[in-house]
C-alpha cells in the first residue's frame, strides 16, 4: 500500500460541526419543555413544521448550487436555524407564516450569502424580522400561558389545527407582560403586578420558567465549551445594569426590574442561542464582550423606548452589522507582541 503524504497535524479532535449543531439542538430542550408546559403544543408544531420547510429549502438550494446533498444536510445547521426560529415565533402561528419565515431565513439569509459560514446576519433573526415587519398582527398574537393541565388549554390536535387550518380554531390569546409594562403609564409596578394575571413571581407567568429553561440549556453548552461565556455574560450584565438604572423604584414610569428583564421575552434564549451564533458575531473574546454588551443595551432600549414588543431580533441584527468593525479593533495580543501591537520587550 502506498504511504500517504499529508501535512501535520495528523491527529484530529473528536468534535465535528454536526456534533456542535446537535449539541445546540439538544440544549434547547429545557426551554422547549417550559414553553410546552405553559403555552401548549404550539411550539412543537412550530418547530417540526419549520424543520420540514428548512430541510426542503436547504435541499432545493443545494441542488441548485450542485452541492452534495448528504454531506451538507448532515451538518444539521438548517435544523438549528429552523428550531430557533420555531421557538421565537408565537405558538399557534399559521403554517404559511412559518413557511415564509423559514424559507426566507434559509434561502436568502443563508444561501444567497454563500451558505453555511458565510452569512453576515443570523438567519433565524432575519426570518423573524421579515415576518414581524410584514405580518405584525400574526407575530404579536401570543397564546395565554394557561398551563398544559388547565381546562381549555389547547392540545396537540388543536395546535395542529391552529397551524394548518388557522380559521377553524380559536386560541385564547393574551397580551404579553412586556406589552403590558410598556403600555402602563399610570400604575406603580407593584399595582400592575397585582392587577394583571399574566405577571408571575419576577416576570411574566410562564415566561420566567421558559427563560430559566433556556438559561439551563445555555449553561450546559458553556460547560460543553460550545461557545465562550463572553457574549452571554456581558449581554445579561448590560441589560441588568440598564434595568437597574431605569427601575425608578418601581414607579409608573419604571422600565421594569432587572429580574423582569432577565426573565422576560427572549432574553435567555437570545443570550445563549442567538448571540452565540459564531458565524454572525464578533470573533475575538474581547470583541464578544463588546458585542454582547451592545446587544444587551439595545434590547433594553428597544424594549422600553421602542415600538416593537420584543427587541432581541433587532438588537442582534444591528450588532451583526457592527461585528466586522468590532473584529477590526479587538484583535487579541499575539504571543511576543506588546499591548500596543508591537513587539514586547
Amino acid at each position, binding site marked *: 500500500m502506498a504511504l500517504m503524504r499529508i501535512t501535520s497535524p495528523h491527529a484530529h479532535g473528536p468534535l465535528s460541526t454536526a456534533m456542535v449543531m446537535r449539541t445546540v439542538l439538544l440544549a434547547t430542550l429545557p426551554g422547549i419543555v417550559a414553553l410546552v408546559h405553559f403555552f401548549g403544543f404550539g411550539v412543537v408544531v412550530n418547530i417540526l413544521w419549520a424543520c420540514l420547510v428548512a430541510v426542503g429549502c436547504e435541499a432545493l438550494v443545494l441542488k441548485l448550487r450542485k452541492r452534495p446533498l448528504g454531506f451538507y444536510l448532515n451538518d444539521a445547521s438548517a435544523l438549528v436555524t429552523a428550531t430557533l426560529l420555531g421557538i421565537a415565533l408565537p405558538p399557534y402561528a399559521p403554517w404559511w407564516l412559518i413557511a415564509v419565515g423559514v424559507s426566507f431565513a434559509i434561502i436568502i439569509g443563508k444561501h444567497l450569502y454563500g451558505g453555511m459560514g458565510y452569512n453576515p446576519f443570523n438567519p433565524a433573526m432575519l426570518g423573524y424580522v421579515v415576518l414581524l415587519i410584514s405580518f405584525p398582527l400574526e407575530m404579536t398574537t401570543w397564546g395565554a400561558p394557561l398551563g398544559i393541565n388547565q381546562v381549555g388549554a389547547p392540545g396537540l390536535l388543536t395546535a395542529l389545527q391552529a397551524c394548518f387550518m388557522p380559521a377553524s380554531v380559536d386560541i385564547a390569546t393574551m397580551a404579553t407582560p412586556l406589552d403590558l409594562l410598556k403600555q402602563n403609564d399610570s400604575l406603580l409596578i407593584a399595582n400592575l403586578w397585582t392587577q394583571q394575571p399574566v405577571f408571575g413571581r419576577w416576570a411574566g407567568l410562564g415566561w420566567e420558567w421558559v427563560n430559566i429553561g433556556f438559561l439551563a440549556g445555555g449553561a450546559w453548552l458553556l460547560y460543553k465549551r460550545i461557545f465562550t461565556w463572553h457574549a452571554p455574560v456581558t449581554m445579561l450584565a448590560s441589560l441588568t445594569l440598564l434595568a437597574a438604572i431605569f427601575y425608578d423604584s418601581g414607579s409608573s414610569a419604571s422600565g421594569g426590574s432587572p429580574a423582569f428583564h432577565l426573565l422576560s421575552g427572549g432574553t435567555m434564549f437570545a443570550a445563549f442561542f442567538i448571540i452565540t451564533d459564531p458565524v454572525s458575531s464578533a470573533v475575538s473574546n474581547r470583541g464578544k464582550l463588546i458585542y454582547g454588551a451592545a446587544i444587551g443595551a439595545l434590547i433594553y432600549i428597544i424594549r422600553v423606548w421602542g415600538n416593537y414588543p420584543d427587541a432581541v431580533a433587532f438588537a442582534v441584527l444591528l450588532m451583526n452589522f457592527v461585528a466586522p468593525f468590532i473584529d477590526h479593533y479587538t484583535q487579541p495580543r499575539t*504571543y511576543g507582541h506588546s499591548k500596543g501591537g508591537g513587539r514586547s520587550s
Partner: protein
Amino acid sequence: MRKIYDIHGGIHPLENKHQSLQVSSTPAGIPPQLFYPLSQHIGAPAKAVVSVGQKVLKGELLAAADGFISVPIHASTSGVITAIEPRPVPHPSAMPAPCIVLDSDGLDTWIEHSGVEDYTQLERSALLQLIRDSGIAGMGGAGFPAAVKLGVNPERGRINTLLINGTECEPYITADDILMREQAEAIIAGIHILTHLVEPTEILLGIEDNKPEAIAALRAAAAGTAIDIVVFPTKYPSGGEKQLIEIVTGKQVPSGGLPADIGIVCQNVGTIYAIYRAVTYGEPLISRMTTVTGNAAAHPRNYEVLLGTPMSWLLDLAGYDAKRNQRLMMGGPMMGFTITDPSVPVVKTTNCLLAPTVEELPAPDPAQACIRCGMCAEACPASLLPQQMYWFAQGKEFEKLEAHNLFDCIECGACSYVCPSNIPLVQYYRAAKAEIVQMRNDHAKSEHSRTRFEARQERLDREAAEKEAQRATRKAAAEQRARDAAAGDGVEDPVQAAIARAKAKKAGQAEPAASADPAQAAIEKAKATRAASADLAPEDKARQDLQKLRERAEKSRARLTESREAGAQDKVIEALDASVLKLDEKIATAVAAMADQGWSENPQQAPADPAQAAIERALAKRAAQAAAPALSPREQLQKNLQSVEKSLQKATAKLAEAEQENSDKVEVLQQSVQKLTTKQSQVQAELTALED
C-alpha cells in the same frame, strides 16, 4: 515551589505514550548500510571531507561544518564510503538530497578519542568549539546547532536562565522520557557542563506531570544541586520553546526575537546528553534515542539508534506490519511529517517513528465550511485568530495575514486539531507563509533591479547630455570659423590654411604622446581625432565616413561567417545578417551622396597641401621639358606660332563670348587679343626671316 504560568490555548490530545514505555530502551544494532544526509540541521549543509572508497572508523569526521550555522557529521560505525550522491532523506518535501553512503564492516571500530578530564579548566571558547566539532544540533526536533545557541552573542545581554526542555508534549513520543529515566545522572552532569559554559543565575528543567518516573529520577540525580526541576500540567504544546519559557518564567520571547533577548537559553534534554557524551568521552553525536511506536508496530519501544540507520531497519526490529499502516511519520502526530520511503535514514532530529494503523489515525474527513466557532482561537498557544487568518489565506490577503501576525504561528496544529469542520488550517498558513516569503524575495529582487535600472538610466542620460553639450560646442566653433572666414577678405590663402592645418594636426598628434595616463591619452586622442575630423573639408569627411562604413561592413561580414561556421544560434546570425545589409545600404547611400557632390571616392594621392602640389607640378613640367629632345630654332618658332595662334583663337572666342554677354571683361580681352595678334605677327615675321 516555583510559580507556574499558564499559556493561552493548548489542547489535550490522547497521549498514547504508554505503548512505547513498556520496556527500557534497546540498541538498534548496526545495519549493513548507513546514509548520512549532509543537511540534518538548520543552517548550511555540511561539506563532505571523505571520498568514495575511503575506509572510515566509528566517530571519524565525514563532513565538516560549512560556515557558522552548520554542524559536522561523523561516521556512526566503521566501514567503507561507497557513494556520495543524492538519496531519499527524511524531509517533508520527499526530495532526494546529497548523502554519504557508508557500508559498515560490522567491526564497529572506534577512532581514537578521549574526553576532557576537567572541563572547568577549559576555556569557554574551547568548550564551545568541542561541542561544535562534535556535530551537536538541537535534538528536540528543530536541529539548530547547539554551539551557536550556547555561544550566543554577549551583546544581546547576559544569560540569566538556563532552561532545559524535558517537556516532550507531543503524543506518542517518549524518547526524552526514557532518556531522562535511564540517563538522569548523565543529564544532570551535562547540565553542569552547560552551567559552566553560560554561567546562569538560575537553572530550570521543565517537565510535564505525565512523566512521574522521569521526574523522580531527575530529582534524585539533581538533589543538592542548584537545578530546579519544574513540573507543570500536561498540555500540548507546552514543549514549544516559547511556550515552555512562558510557563516557567512568565515571560514571552519577543516576536521575531530569540530567548537570549530575554536572558534565556533553552536546550533539549537529548542535546544535553549528547553534550555530556562529547565532553566526557569525546564521542561525537553518532547515535540518538528514537521512539518507534504506533499500532502497526508490534513491539513499540525506544531504540538507541546509530545515526544513518535506515528507518526500515528500525521498523523491522519493531515488528512493523506494512499492511496495517497507511501513513508513516517522523515525529509525532501533531507536528511530524509523513515519510513515503521507509529507506530514509534516522537523522539527528528523528525523535520518533510513528506507524499508526488506519483506525488509530484515520484519513482526514473532507473539510466543511468554517462556522467561525472560534475553537481554534481558543486553542491557539500564540493567541492568534486562526479563523480570521484562514479567511484571509483563502482570499490571499497577505497584508491582513501579516497584520494578524501570521509569522508568529508556530504551526503546532492545535487549531486544526480542534476544528469541528476539519479544515487543515495549518496547511493554509504554511502555504501563505511560503507565498509571502516568496513575494518578499521577489520584491527585494525587483527592488534591486529597479535601483540598477535607474542607475543605468541616469548614466545614459548623463552621457547623452555630455554628448549634446559637445555637439553644441562643436557647432558653435564651426559657426565661428565660418563667420571668421566671411569676415576675412573672402579669399583665404589656401597655402597658409593648409600649413596651419598641418601644424595643428602635428600638434594634436604630439600632445597625446606626451601624456602618460593611457586613459587620458585615449581621451585626448579621441578629442584630437574629432578635432581633426571637424577640420576636414566636407569632401574628406565624407570620404573618411565612407571608409569607416566599409571597415565596419567588413568586420560584420567576418563575424557573420565566423558565427555561421561556429553554428551559432539562428537569432545571432539573423542579427548579423541584418547589420551587414544595413551597412551595405549605408555605404550605397554614402557613395550616392558623394557622387551627387561630384566628389571622387578615391582621394588624390597627392599631398593635401595644394601649394606644394602646384610647385611639384611645375617642377615636373620643367623636368619634362628638360627631358624633351632639343628642337631646331625653326621648329621652335613654328611651335611657338602654333601655341600663340591657339591662344589667339581662344582669346578671340572668349572675346566674342564676352561681347555677346556684354561683360566688363571685353576690354581686357580685346587687349589680350591685340597683344596676341601682335605676338603672332612677330613670330610669323621671325619665322619668315629664318626661312629666308
